[in-house]
């Protein structure tokens, strides 16, 4: 596996609408090859992962979503903050009755809803637990992929623990948050951003990379999703943009293959070609902005239709070429 070989926690973020959930799932598929066991985690209660694998909504237990060739396995987990808190309390403090007491007192509601930032602490804490968990003499999972909150929120999400750690200063919460931040800032973690070759997602990616670096988090790669190859040659693109395509010769060519060459229709096609050329030109400048970041860029093709395991494998191939 030559996809960030030292990394065990892949955090996948990106602007909304760029397809970060699909990319996270494809990354899990790629990482599961060669007989590896991968955990795919979602934290926003959207249940976005299960449908990609044709699976029913995920409970708060690690559930196998797919097997891949060579004995690889992908597990999915939808982290629920309230259950994560109770689990956390029981694991670290052997609370038992006292945990139930906290719940009756409304403390759990407080932590998970009234002070919503603490939610992020619990979620990242659960992710850390799954990364370091052992099964015998090896890690329970070879890699963990986190379908994380969007770029605008990612640094705050990952840093929530740090924030609470500062508040707590000493004691178990402080110790726990230190451990989470140590993992997140280590070489075992990589934060990837998914983007499209469009203005707003690229701008957000450029800002996001700077923020992630400033927060001392290790950056992984920019994944450019849904890349479409131009359908026209360079010269034709230039002509199309300037409205100088030779409509008569296009008309004539269409007529030879039995397409009704009514001049109105050809004009419409030329207008579509102009918009296509505009978009291609925009993509070229957007790509330059991404190249200037000097981080690994990975391109994924635009695929049509609903995403399923087959599509995820295609994307995994593009993500980690053989």
């Amino acid at each position, binding site marked *: 596996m030559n996809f960030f070989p030292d990394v065990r926690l892949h955090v996948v973020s990106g602007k909304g609408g760029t397809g970060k959930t699909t990319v996270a799932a494809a990354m899990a598929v790629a990482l599961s090859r060669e007989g590896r066991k991968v955990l795919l985690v979602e934290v926003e209660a959207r249940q976005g992962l299960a449908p990609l694998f044709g699976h029913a909504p995920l409970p708060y237990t690690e559930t196998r979503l797919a097997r891949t060739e060579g004995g690889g396995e992908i597990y999915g987990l939808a982290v629920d903050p309230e259950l994560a808190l109770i689990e956390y309390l029981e694991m670290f403090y052997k*609370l038992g009755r006292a945990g139930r007491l906290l719940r009756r007192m409304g403390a759990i509601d407080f932590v998970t809803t009234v002070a919503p930032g603490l939610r992020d602490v619990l979620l990242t804490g659960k992710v850390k637990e799954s990364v370091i968990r052992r099964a015998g003499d090896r890690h329970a999972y070879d890699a963990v992929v986190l379908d994380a909150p969007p770029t605008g929120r990612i640094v705050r999400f990952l840093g929530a623990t740090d924030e609470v750690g500062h508040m707590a200063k000493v004691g178990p919460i402080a110790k726990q948050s230190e451990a989470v931040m140590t993992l997140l800032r280590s070489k075992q973690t990589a934060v990837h951003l998914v983007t499209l070759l469009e203005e707003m997602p690229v701008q957000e990616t450029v800002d996001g990379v700077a923020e992630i670096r400033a927060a001392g988090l290790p950056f992984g790669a920019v994944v450019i999703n849904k890349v479409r190859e131009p359908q026209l040659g360079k010269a034709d693109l230039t002509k199309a943009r300037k409205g100088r395509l030779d409509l008569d010769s296009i008309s004539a060519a269409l007529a030879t293959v039995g397409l009704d060459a009514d001049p109105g229709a050809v004009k419409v096609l030329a207008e579509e070609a102009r918009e296509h050329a505009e978009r291609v030109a925009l993509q070229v400048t957007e790509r330059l902005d991404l190249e200037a970041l000097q981080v690994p860029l990975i391109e994924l093709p635009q695929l049509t239709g609903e995403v399923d395991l087959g599509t995820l494998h295609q994307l995994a191939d593009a993500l980690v070429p053989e």
Partner: protein
Amino acid sequence: MSTPRRRLDLDAVVDGRRIVVCCGSGGVGKTTTAAALALRAAERGRRVVVVTIDPARRLAQSMGLTELDNTPRRVAQAGADGGELHAMMLDMKRTFDEIVVAHADPARAEQILTNPFYVSLSSSLAGTQEYMAMEKLGQLHASGEWDLIVVDTPPTRSALDFLDAPQRLTGFLDGRFIKLMLAPAKAGGRAYLKVMNVGISTFTGVLTRITGTSLLTDLREFFAAFESLFGGFRERAQLTYDLLKDPNTAFVVVAAPDPAALREASYFIERLSAEDMPLAGVVINRVHRSAAPQLSAERSIAAAEVLEERAGNATAVGVLRMHADRAALSARERTVITAFTSGRPGVPVAEIEAMATDVHDLDGLRRVGENLATYPAA
């Protein structure tokens, strides 16, 4: 295509309502839609303010917003017939601070503003944004200065969490947790431990074990200082809730024509209807339409293949393939939109056509507004 569906009349919304709340998942063009609706209202003669959360830089610049300063700024060259457009970016920390200052005496306000727990809660912890957006909405409404207030919401599911705020605050404030947190402060320092019953000392003991003593102290101080504000908070949350439920308010759910975004839109619709909130309808943004629908993707590809075989005009081959891509995309989008609207026959829908480049100036916003008003296109 033949499914009968109700058309969302957005001109009626921007002309008649007092508040428009745009919600939806990220990346669907929510901020752009909010700005376009506000601009349209201003050009139809209303005095409008649009509150945005985190606008794309160039969109913000197009409206003259250069900083997050929590003050509505007039947008130049926008508005007609006496209408004006003002825009502001929400500064959540400042909004929070303002509430504290307005509702606590100076000494207490100072105590709250410097409490480490408060500092984190107000400036960096997620979730506060939603509450502050609604708080700002309440303030703007109370000022009586605006014919129409358009609010953009954060791009998460939790954007609608503020709908629960009144019940949640009430449950929380009437609960024992808060009373316990406040107990020591009232009992005067540490002496309380002696007088409390076993249940409570177990409870505090557990909290101390989990949090360490300093966090607990900060939390206690925070709650103690905040106590006088809580009642006010609950009242304000209830007022905002009533305001949102008012028939003069309209919720507009923004989506994109793909299955994931429409699933999220369904979630928002269900959430709003569960609370009896006034849903105006759904805006489906960036819909691709082919202006040559008679030439299907299949026919176009077939023609391109034949032409290619005959080594015919390469430009024509490229144009046909380009058109086939677009026609296929348009057909796929139509399928998911139809599935969505058939499942919700009562929900009015409007569409915005995809544009070749991003919208980042007033003219672009105007085009989006016209697009919405004139939907469905002939």
